[in-house]
């Protein structure tokens, strides 16, 4: 899509160059200290806080016309917020967009990491609503900063322990806390814990942007990301017993689709591109059309 007339009144990528430089400096610092939340001078964006402003500022600071941008929300390219953010960058950054995970150089995402493994040539930008993994346990930022500085994560282990003691399991389903590079406890954002294992040793650079909370953090390529657990209660990702109804894939994260009001439902891939490509390659699930 060419830049429409009002877009020309804004700088390439919407943000001014000074702001982009500021964001990139924060990114460099974040890469240098894996898992550490770097405060940055987050700007107001033309979409609301909580809707991906942090991720958008990272994307806007890195994007070039040579990039191919993929935007997903809940794993899908066609969810309204993903459509809207992709539309924004097509308008202000004159960038090619794609649904195809392997074709993208830059992937902005909310709540999922694609099923297809990412490569060294790719960067994934995650939108972060709440960067502070300790926030639910300690509302004060001043205290949380101390917890990280001292690496005093006992409170988090206690939370996990209490969960095991009370319910026999760790009842965190998304935003499951991880230890990055053996130093900082980090929130992987509200990805389901199914996606946590994808983060460790990932060849692609993982960047995290929290606009409202004004924090940027990163996991550099090939960094160890360990989901917190106990020896006798090891971390387990979610497991879906049925194959995808459309493409028959197993071992993927699935959405539950309600088919009627009598309990009829089916499970399909959450990653819409992954599913579409499998179907195009001839794979067929039990509920697929002929």
């Amino acid at each position, binding site marked *: 899509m060419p830049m429409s007339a009002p877009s020309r009144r804004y700088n390439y990528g919407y943000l001014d160059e000074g702001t982009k430089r500021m964001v990139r400096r924060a990114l460099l610092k974040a890469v240098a200290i894996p898992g550490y939340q770097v405060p940055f001078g987050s700007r107001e964006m033309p979409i*609301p806080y909580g809707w991906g402003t942090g991720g958008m500022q990272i994307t806007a600071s890195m994007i070039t016309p040579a990039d191919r941008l993929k935007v997903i929300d809940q794993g899908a390219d066609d969810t309204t917020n993903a459509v809207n953010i992709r539309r924004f960058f097509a308008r202000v950054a004159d960038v090619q967009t794609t649904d195809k995970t392997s074709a993208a150089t830059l992937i902005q995402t909310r709540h999922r990491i694609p099923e297809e493994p990412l490569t060294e040539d790719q960067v994934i930008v995650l939108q972060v609503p709440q960067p502070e993994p300790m926030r639910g346990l300690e509302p004060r930022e001043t205290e949380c900063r101390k917890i990280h500085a001292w690496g005093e994560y006992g409170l988090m282990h206690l939370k996990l322990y209490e969960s095991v003691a009370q319910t026999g399991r760790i009842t965190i389903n998304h935003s499951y806390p991880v230890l990055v590079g053996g130093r900082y406890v980090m929130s992987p954002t509200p990805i389901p814990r199914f996606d946590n294992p994808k983060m460790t040793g990932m060849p692609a650079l993982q960047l995290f942007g929290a606009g409202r909370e004004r924090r940027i953090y990163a996991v550099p390529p090939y960094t160890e990301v360990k989901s917190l657990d106990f020896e006798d209660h090891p971390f387990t990702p*979610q497991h879906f017993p049925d194959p995808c109804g459309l493409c028959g894939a197993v071992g993927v994260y699935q959405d539950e689709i309600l088919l009627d009001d009598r309990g009829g439902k089916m499970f399909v891939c959450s990653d819409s591109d992954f599913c579409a490509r499998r179907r195009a390659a001839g794979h067929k699930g039990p509920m697929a059309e002929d």
Partner: protein
Amino acid sequence: MAYVPVKGGEEAILNSLGMVAEERRGDPATPELTIAQIRQQQARAVDRVMAEGSLYDPDLAALALKQAQGDATEAAFLLRAYRTTLEQFATAPPLDTARMAIRRRISATYKDLPGGQVLGPSYDYTHRMLDFDLMQDGPRAPAARAGTPVDAHMPRVPDLVANEGFMEPALPPEGDPAPGDLTRQPLGFPAGRDTRLQNLARGDEGFLLGLAYSTQRGFGSNHPYAGEIRAGEVPVEVVPEELGFVIDIGEVTVTESQMITSIKGASGENPRFTRGYGLVFGHSERKAMSMALIDRALRADEFAEPRKYPAQDEEFVLYHSDNVESSGFVQHLKLPHYVDFQAELKMLREMRAERQEASQ
């Protein structure tokens, strides 16, 4: 049974935007609002949008109100998102509100004072009865004014008594450092008073009002006096580096409020009056007074007052006052969350199944 996934998010968005535009315009038989009408006849709404949008531009604030169908928070957001793209080309020296062209200036602490009480335009003494004459267009009688103009120099009331030594002086902090700017640097704690005041000046009027009220009603312990409230026009000056002298670049309408609270003083200190300060764009006494009360509550540490109440809690106040932030985050719950919901649902199912198994 076959299932076909739904697509078409982009078309739906474009259609939604079209519907907004249509609703905004309303019945085409009714004349469209002009920016001048909004700016002049909905001026208090324009003021609020400028204050919370953190940009003094009545025309753009009026445009934002028109675009947002009168939704003040949405309009402030539009203005903020525009403001953030603007270049900062100069820094103005502090406004001198003693040089204000006074529309209104009142003090609750003195019956009369140099410059006098100037009631000016105020809703305070209106009877809140609907004026049905306003249902129709019609000629309105011009307002009568005092025969003599107000003084050009109108000293601020708390300053009048400062030299007696009872009032804490209003002095810049040591070294007079440049104030912080929340729109450029992230909030850090403890926040300086400069940062707190900037946050409050941009903050949501409703949030500030509620917090200020809480300090009066019982969740606070200061008994404040309205030392002075003034509203009017103040010149804005800059000193361009290449010129080296002051030039006047225009004027802004502001409302300033100073609230006064007595303290007994810690041992060895003199009992005295302390101040809370409020300054907002436009004419909004409700917000300026609220800001002054909260500013004073947040100064608890300076006066060794115990921090016991929400309004005294810097992190609580500063992190939750901004309506662009809070509106965005509250409403982000409208975005799809089905991946995480699925994870929760799955866990509940598994836990129930385990429980059922255990009971059999």
